[in-house]
């Protein structure tokens, strides 16, 4: 045998070169996929953060064309809409998730899971139309409630599926131990199973909230928007995504600056939720 480097024939060398090229291609394309993200984030941070000041966060919008003003009503509006959506979707979603985890293989369970997965794939604008038909038209009023309902329908499948997934991962031994100790079925679910899966369930809720907070389309004809501060969910309400949409497409530099700031705030909220989700998962997760 030769000492030192082995001598490879030309064909093998070509294949090794091809291997390197392929790796390079994969790496290159992956960077093409992810570098724009960096760009987007940097840009919004630079442009948006500079708009953030006390006035921006606490004042209401000014009439068209005037400088100054803020987006306080949009920030509060988004928070209220999310609260309403959470109240509607979390109890229903968690219960539906428990049902799927418990009775997933039954006929109703299969139908329910199919329904939830289909709901997940419905475009948000279609949900907005449904909320308009169900709430806005009959009540003859645009309202934060209808917007919250639309967001709830968008959040529901996310919460349901992640709850089911979490609960399915809990070992059977835990249930059996509880039942063997004489714990009733409801108690077993609520006091033993749910708490064990809490981190996963909260993760699902936070992810659903992150998704709901960013939705614009369904709010266009439900929450409608308002230049005033409004806490009343039976009346039209402003929201961050809608504000961004309206201001970004306007020609006024002042409004565009506000839009960058609003995008920054929205991004911070959404990304913070995603990061908190990660921390919750790693810290609270009960390992079996």
């Amino acid at each position: 045998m030769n000492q030192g480097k082995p001598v490879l024939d030309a064909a093998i060398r070509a294949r090794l070169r091809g291997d390197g090229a392929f790796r390079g291609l994969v790496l290159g394309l992956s960077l093409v996929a992810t570098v724009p993200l960096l760009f987007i984030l940097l840009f919004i941070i630079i442009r948006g953060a500079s708009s953030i000041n006390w006035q921006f966060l606490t004042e209401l919008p000014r009439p068209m064309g005037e400088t100054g003003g803020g987006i306080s009503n949009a920030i509060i509006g988004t928070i209220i809409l999310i609260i309403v959506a959470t109240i509607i979707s979390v109890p229903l979603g968690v219960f539906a998730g428990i049902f799927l985890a418990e009775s997933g293989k039954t006929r109703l369970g299969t139908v329910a899971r199919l329904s939830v997965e289909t709901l997940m794939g419905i475009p948000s604008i279609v949900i907005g139309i449904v909320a308009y038909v169900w709430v806005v038209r009959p009540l003859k009023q645009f309202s934060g409630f209808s917007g919250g309902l639309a967001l709830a329908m968008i959040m529901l499948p996310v919460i349901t599926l992640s709850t089911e997934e979490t609960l399915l991962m809990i070992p059977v031994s835990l249930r059996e131990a509880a039942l063997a100790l004489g714990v009733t079925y409801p108690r077993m679910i609520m006091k033993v199973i749910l708490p064990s899966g809490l981190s996963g369930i909260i993760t699902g809720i936070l992810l659903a909230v992150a998704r709901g907070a960013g939705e614009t389309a369904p709010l266009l004809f439900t929450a409608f928007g308002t230049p005033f501060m409004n806490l009343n969910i039976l009346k039209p309400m402003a929201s961050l995504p809608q504000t961004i949409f309206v201001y970004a497409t306007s020609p006024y530099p002042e409004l565009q600056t506000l839009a960058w700031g609003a995008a920054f705030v929205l991004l911070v909220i959404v990304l913070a939720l995603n990061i908190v989700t990660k921390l919750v998962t790693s810290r609270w997760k009960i390992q079996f």
Partner: protein
Amino acid sequence: MRSTRLSDRAFRTGLVLGGVVVSVLLIAIFLSLLLSSRPALVKNGLRFLTGTEWNPVTDTFHALPFVAGTLLTSFVALIIATILSLALSVLMGEYFKKGVFANIMRTAVELLAGIPSVVYGFIGLFFLAPLIRLLQEAVGAPPYGVSILTASILLAFMILPYSASIGREMISLVPSDLKEAALSLGATPSETVWKVTLPYARSGILGGILLSLGRAMGETMAVTMVIGNANDLTPNILGPGNTMASLIANEFSEASGDVYLASLIEIALLLFIISTLINVVGKIIVNRMAQAS
């Protein structure tokens, strides 16, 4: 003892109710769309799917330009996203399964998924559109900047995370003994990926592509901000166009006339049906792949 049995049954009923409610919700959504679009279904008939004119003035409502726009933007987005997400899946499934770089990439992709549609549209309007304008000028097309291509590129980045995570999952399902067999026979890692892993995961990846297609078709805000909002049937990706979702966003709040509003809801119904079908088929394929391994 009787009280616990009652609460036991009440609880179980509550759970069943949860399952029933979500099922009923879906049916209710479908029925609502169907009923609300009835005036249009009756008036437009089958011409709705084949005609090319959308004219509120003459009460003529045809969906084809928007179906075409939806499919065109989604397919172009899909091509771009598939190439990029396959690269990401292979990167994270084969080359960098663990480690700092893997974590960075994974986080980056997840963050991409978290950016709201309207923010994508905002960025697209201010950055992508001028770039596309340069392209249009270079080839002699009208330099709108906003176009089907602009929307497709934005869409590609929006569905990328979803597509990449499914791809990664499908690739991880490939049995390692297959890969190791190939390597032991002298294949290079890339040859293994190219000739063993990807073909094996092919159907799963196809399913993932379909699921991403379903996602792309429903995107509204980013698309409506950069597509140019022209309601004609056109295959020209360097020109403006419109999609079903974008049309609804533009015209819903002002659609007076019962047939007009009902026609928009009919478009929503069509969008609902098409995206549901694609999602169902995609899910079936993905599940079958997962079960096979």
